[in-house]
């Protein structure tokens, strides 16, 4: 399944779909990092608004994406975790401890703008 990746200035925005298989997630992980390199992006926003289930694999993949992108010197913000999904994640014992999260795309962009404001 194709995940649309939108380039907006130095930020890449990847919009996850509801029904991503493990293979899709693995492919996406590599694809995103490659795009960050290609476009010299400073940040990636991963929009998971459409994801109705975040199980252990999806959550581990998101953490790995964030870590790989950090090694590249860019930042990842996960946006749009739905309240019900957040509840299920906590029940399941999943955390995204060292990954930045924001309410939605708008908040994610605002966070990055604020962060990069002083470095331009």
């Amino acid at each position, binding site marked *: 399944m194709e995940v649309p990746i939108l380039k907006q200035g130095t930020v890449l925005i990847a919009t996850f779909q509801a029904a991503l*298989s493990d293979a899709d997630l693995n492919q996406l992980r590599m694809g995103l990092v490659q795009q960050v390199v290609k476009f010299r992006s400073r940040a990636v926003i991963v929009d998971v608004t459409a994801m109705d289930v975040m*199980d252990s694999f999806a959550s581990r993949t998101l953490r790995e994406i964030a870590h790989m992108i950090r090694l590249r010197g860019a930042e990842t913000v996960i946006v749009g975790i739905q309240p019900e999904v957040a*509840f299920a994640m906590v029940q399941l014992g999943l955390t995204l401890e060292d990954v930045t999260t924001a309410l939605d795309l708008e908040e994610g962009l605002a966070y990055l703008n604020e962060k990069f404001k002083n470095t331009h």
Partner: protein
Amino acid sequence: MVASPEIRVAINSDPDIVTARQKGRARAVELGFSSGDATLIATAISELARNIVAYAKKGLITLQVVNGSNRQGISVTASDDGPGIPDIRQALRDGFSTSGSLGLGLPGVRRLMDEFEITSLPGRGTTVVVKKWRQ
């Protein structure tokens, strides 16, 4: 409510995990579960199906309607003929995983659902039955 047959989803590879949890969510919503509870059920199915793929390679997820004395619920059975779990007590402890690729597995699934039963025979397979009652 019209009685409905059980739904069976064969789990042979990782895309089946998505199919199983989608069917589970749809069934839960049909049965009148809240969207939040349907998410918990779908997440539990995802983890159980994932265990099948990771440890047994193939197995079956069965969804059934269960009727209590004055309540209705959904039961999810995850069964496989895989290697079985040598130490169930250890597998039910948070943080335990032998495949290295899983998150927290069974203890998490137990927290997502109302009832949890597991039977496993080394060399014969594992069956996990979980239930959630409609609030």
